[in-house]
């Protein structure tokens, strides 16, 4: 800001100037405040986006321009997907003042079962590469995750054992169980269709469909804002000014289309292009053919999960109860909410999300290993907390947690790019976590 002490001193001789410059500043502040009120932008979210951009730009400069490349950003998006998916569920868990320490182990166990199902069981019943294998494996994974979540939820809600303990037990139990399934053997290679859910050149939807998805997303945003306006008109509530609505729509659409453009400027590597040319009997030089990756399928899955979970949190009774319970569980019970059942449902959701995340991470690795998902619980909790989920309950957004996952992954992959060794990576990540929560606390206290 421009109000430095020098100006104040100078102001002694020319009070008018100071008064005027303060007037300008004040006017500017008022305008900013008006802007945020009119657009109803979450300033906390904006701060996080700012921090993310800062991290990106800093890494870009320190790494001599290797961070903000389509290739790196595309990889970053794929690496974030699995943790981001689980973070959406962790928000609901933490909002109700619970915790889930078992997500990494549940992911590992479910992933192992999915791998065994598609590699060892199903090919015996159907033939290898049967088109239904991936669906069956995915369904088994999600259903198994749901059952494990239901078990955790039941013990927590109906038997009254604290979530910390139940999921700490789960952390050990499911890691051990994952080992037991194959006595520690890695299961690989996976079904070829299933593998598409992990990304890679084939596991992306290409330039054309990426633009289609981007266009649809813009349309959706427009429809949502129009619908909100119509709803408020129905009861003659004050509306957002039109300029604010236009600003929101255009910013969001620009971001979405920008992301699509980045994904579409990351070409397939030369080797895969060569194979593609050979397989299709084309008569072109590999260097002349530019085939873009487009949006990766795991990223698409994560975004869809984010949208569905936001819908659940904001627009359904279940979501409303989750936030009501987080603020005051006893009040929710007195209002007639079946808090035990809601708690159980939260853990079922968390389990299903572990199934989806397990799908993404095994598909990316093309294998299920015994150590799959180890320490993921910490990344997931950190993502939710950095994303603004309050450990004292009642507060947290899905979008924030997913953004938190991107922040965490950006730190890790940036440090990897710089060749920082892994102990130091952990130190930095730990410091950032504490710093983020401290800053968030200050922000919240100022907001009152």
């Amino acid at each position, binding site marked *: 800001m421009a109000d430095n002490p020098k100006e104040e001193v100078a102001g002694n001789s020319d009070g008018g100037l100071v008064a005027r410059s303060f007037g300008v500043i004040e006017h500017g502040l008022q305008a900013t405040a008006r802007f945020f009120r009119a657009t109803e932008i979450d300033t906390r979210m904006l701060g996080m986006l700012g921090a993310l951009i800062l991290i990106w730009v800093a890494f870009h400069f320190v790494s001599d321009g290797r961070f903000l490349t389509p290739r790196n950003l595309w990889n970053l998006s794929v690496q974030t997907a699995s943790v981001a998916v689980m973070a959406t569920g962790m928000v609901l868990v933490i909002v109700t003042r619970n915790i889930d320490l078992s997500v990494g182990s549940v992911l590992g166990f479910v992933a192992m079962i999915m791998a065994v199902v598609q590699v060892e069981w199903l090919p015996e019943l159907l033939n290898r590469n049967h088109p239904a294998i991936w669906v069956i494996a995915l369904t088994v994974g999600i259903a198994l995750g749901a059952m494990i979540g239901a078990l955790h939820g039941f013990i927590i809600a109906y038997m009254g054992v604290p979530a910390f303990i139940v999921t700490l037990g789960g952390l050990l139990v499911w890691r051990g169980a994952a080992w037991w399934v194959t006595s520690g053997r890695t299961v690989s290679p996976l079904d070829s269709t299933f593998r598409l859910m992990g990304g890679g050149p084939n596991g992306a939807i290409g330039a054309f469909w990426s633009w289609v998805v981007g266009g649809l997303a813009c349309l959706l945003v427009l429809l949502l804002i129009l619908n909100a306006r119509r709803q408020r008109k129905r*009861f003659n*509530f004050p509306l957002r000014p039109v300029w604010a609505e236009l600003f929101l729509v255009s910013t969001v659409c620009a971001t979405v289309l920008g992301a699509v453009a980045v994904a579409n400027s990351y070409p397939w590597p030369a080797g895969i292009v060569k194979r593609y040319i050979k397989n299709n009997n084309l008569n072109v030089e590999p260097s002349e053919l530019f085939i873009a990756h487009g949006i990766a399928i795991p990223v698409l899955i994560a975004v869809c999960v984010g949208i569905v979970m936001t819908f659940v949190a904001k627009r359904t*009774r279940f979501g*409303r109860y989750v936030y*009501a319970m987080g*603020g*005051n569980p006893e009040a929710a019970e*007195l*209002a*007639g909410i079946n808090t035990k059942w809601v708690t159980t449902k939260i853990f079922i959701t968390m389990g299903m999300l572990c199934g989806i995340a397990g799908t993404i991470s095994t598909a990316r690795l093309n294998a299920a290993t015994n150590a799959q998902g180890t320490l993921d619980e910490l990344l997931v909790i950190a993502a939710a907390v950095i994303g603004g989920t309050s450990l004292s309950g009642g507060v947290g957004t899905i979008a924030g947690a997913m953004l938190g996952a991107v922040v965490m992954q950006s730190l890790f992959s940036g440090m990897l790019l710089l060749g920082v060794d892994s102990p130091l990576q952990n130190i930095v990540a730990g410091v950032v976590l504490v710093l983020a929560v401290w800053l968030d606390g200050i922000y919240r206290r100022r907001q009152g």
Partner: protein
Amino acid sequence: MRKNSTEKVIELENISISFGGIHAVDDASVDLHKGEVVALLGHNGAGKSTLVKILSGAYKRDAGDIRVRGELANISNPRDAKAYGIETIYQTLALADNVDTAANLFLGRELRTAWGTLDDVAMEAAAREVMGRLNPRFQRFKEPVKALSGGQRQSVAIARAIQFNAQILIMDEPTAALGPEETAQVGELIKQLKYEGISIFLVSHDIEDVFDLADRVAVMKNGQMVGSADVGSVTKDEVLGMIILGKCPPAAQKGPGAVNQ
């Protein structure tokens, strides 16, 4: 004064509950007629809140029966009580701090659109209407109720109870946090509700208010019922004597908690 003394809507019969060794409520009986306001009085810790919380399903009683409109009622959680048309304003308000006024008013009974999603706009409209009746200056509909003042929160709790056409209303010190103007407004509201035929249990420490609003007083002491009396047949001093000394005046119906004179 009683409009219709024949129909008893609520009968609490020999209710007992204890927490650990403490008999919070001990063999207490009280009833409530249609369109009647019964004030529950007693010193701090006498068991008033505990008794009404048993009726609202927040606590499970150890012994005793609850009859609603003459029939034995099965109330073991708040949902059961609401199903009988019993609404409660708790002494602690029991608001969900992190959601807004409309969400609190409709908590557990949300309005939904044709697609089954929350109809927030409709709920906000209803909230504006009912809050306008109670506290016309109230404007902060978008904020979580945590950000509201004590009196505003109390208004929200009252609004929630009257929103759903309750037949029986339990008000546990509903005006404790309210300013004089808002207290007067709640007084008017109680008279209005009574006029509409709603039966009310009013827990209060304010003898003036009680004599102004209630048809009958019931006094508790150490978890036991000292007695109950029509407000017209006893003086304020006699009621104070019941509260402090447990002395039951001759015009009152004597309970097990009364001292033997």
